[in-house]
């Protein structure tokens, strides 16, 4: 994100082509990575594959700290480091690769709005379930987050992260509530319903071509469907929309055929 403030810098990146050794960094797959981070990482991977840009995925336990904005994932291209889907999209656009050029203004407005919908409702719900539900936080999130570190550092970091997320939930009015009180699953349901309506029977959200919205939705929905949590209710809500299920399957088969993604 900090790179984008420097437009002059962006113009200079456009000159260089996409290198072969571009890398994407994320936390350790098996033991450490959490639902929300995996979803974000998968979105970026899907987007780059849709653009036809090669990327290698490297797992590092301190990926979060290496990232310029503190968020997962981040990509290392040439001598630049860019994190999160939004900046990555802008970065690839500067290099001449874009998926949304063929959209008209109204469609682009809708695409941006739906992306914000996913961030606002889906990502927030994921974070809430992970860190604010005591059962999930205690059984899954904290152990996983602290796994690369020895005691007591792991504990301290995990609690710190939990506290940070809970404060953020306070800001949006979800602080201090349990899963039942906060209509988390209701929000997820509404979000999926909206996405399902928008998708309809089309193969992708806009025209016949994938855009960054498709990458984002795929990343989150696929991760929700394939990650084991203390309860399956989150996945159940997504499963109740069949066109979203077939959408995920289609994207996986089209863009990830060479790679075995986490499968249920």
């Amino acid at each position, binding site marked *: 994100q900090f790179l984008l*403030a420097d437009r002059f810098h962006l113009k200079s990146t456009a000159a260089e082509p996409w290198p072969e050794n571009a890398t994407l960094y994320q936390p350790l797959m098996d033991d450490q990575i959490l639902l929300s981070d995996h979803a974000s990482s998968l979105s970026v991977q899907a987007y780059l594959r849709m653009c036809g840009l090669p990327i290698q995925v490297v797992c590092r336990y301190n990926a979060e700290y290496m990232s310029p*904005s*503190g*968020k997962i994932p981040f990509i290392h291209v040439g001598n630049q480091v860019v994190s999160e889907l939004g900046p990555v999209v802008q970065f690839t656009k500067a290099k001449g690769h874009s998926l949304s050029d063929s959209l008209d*203004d*109204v469609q*682009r*407005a*809708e695409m*941006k*709005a*739906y992306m*914000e*919908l996913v*961030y*606002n*409702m889906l990502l927030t719900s994921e974070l809430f379930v992970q860190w604010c539900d005591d059962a999930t936080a205690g059984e899954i999130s904290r152990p996983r987050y602290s796994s690369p570190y020895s005691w007591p550092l792991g504990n301290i970091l995990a609690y710190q992260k939990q506290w940070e997320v809970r*404060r*953020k939930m*306070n*800001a949006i*009015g979800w602080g201090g509530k349990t899963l039942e009180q906060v209509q988390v699953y209701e929000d997820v349901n*509404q*979000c999926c*319903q*909206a*996405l399902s*309506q*928008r998708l*309809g029977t089309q193969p992708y959200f806009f025209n016949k071509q994938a855009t960054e919205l498709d990458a984002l939705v795929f990343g989150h929905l696929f991760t929700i469907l394939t990650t084991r949590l203390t309860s399956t209710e989150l996945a159940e809500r997504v499963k109740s929309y069949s066109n979203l299920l077939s959408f995920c399957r289609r994207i996986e088969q089209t863009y990830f055929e060479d790679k075995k993604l986490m499968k249920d």
Partner: protein
Amino acid sequence: MAAPDELFCWEGDWGLPSVSTDCLVVLVRVRSLKAPVQLRRPICSPWRSPGGSLPALRTNQNETLSRPSDIIIHLRKQKFNADFDLSAKEGADSLAFISLLEEKLMPALIYTFWVEPKNFVEVTRRWYAEHMMFPLNFFLPGRMQSRQLEKLRLLRGDEHLEAGEELEKELYRDAAECMNLLSQRLGSHKFFFGDSPSSLDAYVFGHLAPILKCKLPNGKLQQHLKSLDNLSDFCSNILLLYFPRDSREPSAQKAPAAPEAGDFDNVPNKRRKQFLSALFALGAMLSYALLTGMVSIQHGHQEALEEPPDPEHIGAHEEEGDG
């Protein structure tokens, strides 16, 4: 139906029924649905509201709802729902655009009203201080500001966020993009979906109207909004439609109240206050001097000159020498 629900909102100004975005959203929704909600006299103290914050809706089951989305859901449950007329796709679009507003426009709104130093001191804090009663007006605006700054920090995920050029540029850029997107989506229609307003219209109005109407020293957002004709017309349209009383400019009423305000300060009766304070200071100094004996009022000036000097007077002169 039992007693109607009661709605508590912030007071209005600058031609708006309320100065708060959330209150505006709820008000527009209530009016457009013609819901039988009783609007309590606009208050200026969140302590008087049932939930401790504004807006607040007290339902007839004595339940209190504070978030605009909760209030709208409650109204919808009572079957006052214009969104029923929206197709499923339009409902989905509605949800998406509301998210866009909250992620891209609201941070800029918070910044421009509460964090930007000039705006906050000259407009926001002054307004709240003037409209709140003693003694709340001393500390409540400051507390509201720290809460808003905290909210902005959490939204941006940056613990050490401070007002500054860089942040302002980023936030305003996002907000400008959001407004452009809304403008493109609205096109030349009267409302976002069909011929009657939906909840998206309420949210858009609630966020844009304060920007449009309030005169801020740092008015970059307002300039950008005014350049988007269809959005400005949209706001004015809703104002005329649902709040005709408030849409008359209040500046005519304000003007006679401060005719001699002076150019550099809006304190009324400034000259009189200055004169009175100077008089008070002078009086205090004089009485102190008299009481300690530094100065003594002599009656009969001629006799004093002829009489031999009194010991008291000598004492007074000595004191004068010391003082």
